């Protein structure tokens, strides 16, 4: 006979545990990783390895310090997911200590010091990314170019990648080139048309490489939606807002702005929309809230890209919206069954 008095429900959806959710998200990044590796060489994979090891070590260490069951929490794959997201977000030839710093900071400060999984108000991966972006701007802006565009004419070999990451690769300069966003940002006085015809980073192969990357992440993200791990609200709102912003400004000032298509297919647009902004812990809870949250990030991305100091704005956009997520939550409660309208705010005693 049962000794445990277990209350209802007595059953659970089989298999769909938190670790499964995390694994699925990690798996959904594979298309992106493959495309990145194909375009930029082994650096991404090496970064991923460094990031994963750092994440597991720092998570285990801090769990041990916090006297938690290390094995149990490591198996939730949340630390690994953070590491993977950071690993693919960092430039492929970034020195190893940048990756370590970013991941360790993300795990220890952005996540565990807030109480671990589920309690962090900010997206840990983006905290780590922002930290290294602010602290080490030079290595962080060193993206590799597609093989047809760079002087070297080939992607880095595995050994070269290792050398670039762990030591120093003298010939690295012949492999790197600005990203399209970088290039567009530094078009200076050129108008758009001139920029797209003259700046190397804005040439077809470069743009196409980023189109591929974004397409790969879009595929992964759609997979997540199909698996019902994320809902469509955040990515759709994010991309929609970015599209609308880009479209409106392009309509008014076509000579100085890029097309909406350019905005959606360069940088971390898709990666951010499907993998970063949808981080459940630090985003909004209700569907309406997610729409607002996603739209906010989209708008912020466009603002930072156009007028900010950094070529891409996903990290800061996400972090800024993380701040407002609780507030949005309070004002976007769904209308509960049997209530005429949804409650907002936290006023108590105002039933309807």
């Amino acid at each position, binding site marked *: 006979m049962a000794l445990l008095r277990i209350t209802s*429900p007595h059953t659970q959806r089989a298999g769909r545990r938190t670790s499964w959710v995390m694994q699925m998200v990690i798996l959904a990044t594979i298309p992106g990783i493959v495309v990145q590796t194909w375009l930029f060489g082994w650096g991404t994979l090496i970064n991923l390895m460094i990031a994963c090891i750092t994440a597991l070590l720092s998570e285990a260490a801090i769990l041990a310090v916090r006297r938690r069951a290390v094995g149990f929490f490591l198996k939730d794959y949340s630390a690994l997911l953070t590491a993977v997201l950071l690993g693919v977000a960092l430039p492929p030839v970034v020195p190893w200590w940048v990756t370590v710093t970013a991941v360790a900071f993300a795990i220890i400060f952005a996540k565990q010091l807030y109480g671990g999984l589920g309690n962090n108000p900010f997206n840990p991966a983006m905290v780590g990314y922002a930290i290294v972006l602010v602290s080490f701007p030079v290595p962080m802006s060193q993206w590799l170019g597609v093989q047809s565009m760079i002087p070297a004419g080939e992607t880095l070999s595995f050994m070269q990648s290792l050398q670039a990451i762990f030591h120093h690769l003298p010939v690295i300069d012949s492999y790197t080139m600005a990203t399209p966003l970088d290039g567009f940002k530094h078009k200076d006085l050129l108008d758009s048309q001139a920029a797209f015809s003259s700046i190397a980073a804005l040439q077809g192969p470069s743009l196409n490489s980023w189109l591929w990357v974004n397409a790969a992440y879009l595929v992964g993200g759609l997979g997540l939606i199909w698996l019902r791990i994320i809902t469509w609200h955040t990515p759709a709102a994010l991309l929609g807002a970015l599209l609308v912003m880009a479209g409106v400004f392009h309509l008014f000032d076509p000579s100085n702005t890029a097309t909406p298509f350019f905005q959606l297919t360069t940088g971390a647009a898709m990666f951010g929309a499907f993998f970063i902004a949808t981080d459940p812990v630090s985003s909004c809870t209700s569907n309406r809230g997610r729409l607002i949250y996603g739209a906010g990030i989209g708008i912020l991305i466009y603002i930072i890209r156009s007028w900010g100091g950094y070529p891409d704005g996903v990290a800061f956009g996400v972090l800024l919206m993380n701040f407002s997520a609780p507030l949005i*939550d309070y004002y976007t409660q769904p209308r509960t069954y049997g209530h005429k309208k949804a*409650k907002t705010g936290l006023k108590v005693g105002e039933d309807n």
Partner: protein
Amino acid sequence: MQAAKLQTAQVFSFHGGIHPPENKTQSLQLPLGKPSLPNELILPLGQHIGQSSRPLVKVGDKVLKGETIAINNGFLSSFLHAPTSGTIAAIEERLIAHPSGLSDLCIILAPDGNETWTPLEPLDNWQDISKTDVLAYLSEMGIIGMGGAGFPTQVKLQGAHKNPLTHFIINAAECEPYITADDMLIREKTLELVLGIEILQHLVEADNIVIGIEDNKPTAIAALKAILSERNSQIQIAVVPTKYPSGGEKQLIQLLTGKEVPSGQYPADIGVLCQNVGTCVAVHDAITLGKPLISRFTTLTGDALKAPQNVEVLFGTPVAHLLEYADFEPKKLSRLIMGGPMMGYTLDSAAVPIVKTSNCILAASKKELPAPAPEQACIRCGMCEQACPASLLPQQLLWFSKSQEFEKAEHHNLFDCIECGACSYVCPSSIPLVQYYRHSKSSIREAREANVKSDLAKQRFEARKARQDAEAAEKEAKRLARQKASSNKATDKKKAAPEKAAPTAAAAPATTDESKKLKVDIAIGKSKLKKLQKQLLEAQENEHVEEINNLQLQVTDQEKAIASLEEQLAQMTSAAPDAPATNTAKASPAPVSDELKKAKVDVALIGVKLKKLQKQLVETPDDQELKDKVSAFETDLKAAQDTVSKLSESTQASTNTAAAEPKAAISDELKKLKIDAAIAKAAVKKVEKALKKAEEINAPEIEAIRQQLQEAQQRADELEKTLANPEAAAPKAAPVKAEPETNVDADAAKKRKIDLAIAKAGIKKAEKNIQLLKEQGKDEAEINASEWPSKLKEAQDKLAGLEKEQASEATAPSVATVTSAPIATANIDADAAKKRKIDLAIAKAGIKKAEKNIQLLKDQGKDESEIEASEWPKKLIEAQQKLAALEAEESTSATSVSTPVEKTAANSEAKVEPEMDLATQIKKEKIAVALAKAQINKLNKRLESSPEEADNIKQEIVATEQRLQSAETLLEKLIHSQTNMQENR
């Protein structure tokens, strides 16, 4: 065609929902089973929502199948019938099927195996008789909602008449996994179900009748459709997609009508009625077959059963019996659940019986329902939110529940959670969300109950604060009164000086010291008393019974102590007629008027309360308690009004007499008494308040408080009595000291004088009261009935006694003091003599006043007989006679006094004004002068008001003026020896 059209109904959708594995096929493999009779049937008395049924049988009774063995106990209750024939083996507590594993009173029936039916009486004419009768019949058949909660069906049907019914929904959704009892019931009893629905429709008259059924029951749907089209019925079938919890009442209503049941309301409020299929069949069986509800369809399923199936089982059958019937494998069993896996509850024991709401027994193996995975952190993935059929934010609710932020949880509509378990089911972190919600809900409910309690406590606290404030205010008022009195003393010294009536205070110090000490003692005692009373009240407020008794004893002790101290003080003050005492004549009105104001406020307050109560009484005329309260308040009011009238009189008296009368001592004492009385009354009021409060909250200490009230009232009454006749208390001490020593003797004499004065004042007051009564138009009988005449009499007797005493004693010392007057040592004697004179003067003034009163009556146009009937003339004569004895020696200005008397009545000639003592003539003369002056004034006034008597009055004036002159010359001779004294005044 028409039937086909009618049978399709629009289906809406609801938010959320889950698709757990259905697991329904297992129990549908075998046909409906009919388990054998168990050894005993355990029939809990509380199988429904509401009051438990009352058993009709005793142990040992033989019952037939279908016989009523328990009847309803109130409105929300139900009947219970014997599921089979047999003997009542016991009525005792047994473990029942309940989420908390409780025991409850059960009737234990030992079947005899014969299954002998009691005669069945179907309600064939249900279409003709009134619906209420049909409902009553359903109640007697023990029919309750068989879907879940067990709500008595007749109550639900009655409630459905609140609004015009748009939808009558038959819930056949059966969305819980594993359960197929309703499915089987529809298959087996399709016709009965439809007939039952038709009977119910006759009762509720809904616009639409819809059977809501999930699309995973094709056989049942087909059977229903066949019958409905055959009967060309207006009943519609709405096939809803399989989704848990579509069988939830609210969700099914949303599915079939698109409407939502407003939060906190019932389906009937939006014109919808839901009935379970089982209930419909039971209604049919009851009305057309006359069979009460004694059995139901139950699903026996789970991996631990080799032969899972549906059974038609008699209520009271132990679960163990059914498990055995379904080839139970004990080794496999890991969890025994009553109900489905989503909302069912675990059973501790298989000994519990099947009841009217048991739809499934799930004997699950470990593999089937594994132990819950360890809870992980909520990653706010929102899956719960997507699944919640109530559109809640389960993850936020979890957060608030964990952090005990119940207000926020409530704001997030925690109480709209139907505990369906969908959120827990989908949660990837295996968080038992529903458990958290249940805990929060019960915590909030507890907090609400605690709130109600704390509200009561707050009321009590406020009452206590009000009481403390009142006490403080009282203290402050008393302090102010004292201050005023003392300052008045100081200012009045000058005013009193010309009266020259005040005696010196040579003998005072000793007594004042002692009295001071006594007063301090009293003050200490009173403060102790107050502290004790406060403690007592606190104890009552906090319901500490033992403390209350203890404190009450202490309070009474303290009260006694104070009373004795006060008595001593009274003696002391009467023995020490020192300067302040005599000089506060003017001071007395102030506190008295304060008193008066307070008393008037009391009257007003009581009046208001009385009115309120009377209003209440009008609303609820049968309330005995209210009536009692009203009468109590009426008496209160009466008492308060009495005090007011008394007080107003005394204020009048004191203002009237303040001119010349040294009634200081008495007014002091009066003041004290009045304050005491006021305190006592305040105590009474306080206790009454406490009593009322106690009555309001039905506190157990009502009796104690009532008793206290009585005691307090008694005390107040006593005090009032003493207040009413202070003269009675005052003279008691008088005869004690009478030694012929110079000092003591003089003191005694003084005291006697004062007593005399007091007594006279008392008489005056009594007379005034009578006068007042008369003015108020009370007839004689009433006045006689009041205590005043008798009091007057008493006082007069006392006065007579005192005066006699004084007269006999007066001669010796006073003669001696005439010569020694200027000498310092003999001062006291002289004072005494002076005092005596003053007293005499007072007495005379009293008589005069009486005469004045008579005059007043005349002025008011009362005829002679009335006046004669009043006691004034008599009194007057008595007083005059008494005076006559005292004044035998006096002759000089005698006639003048008698003059007004001549006019008032024929007996005025009886007045002989003897001179009393020549030695103290000076004082006498002064008074005489004053009196004569007053007389002249008065006469002049009268002259103005009644010119027809002018001659008479003029003569009088002349005579009085002569008298005045002679008195003044006499006075002049002696005046130089008085200068010192006058200055002292």
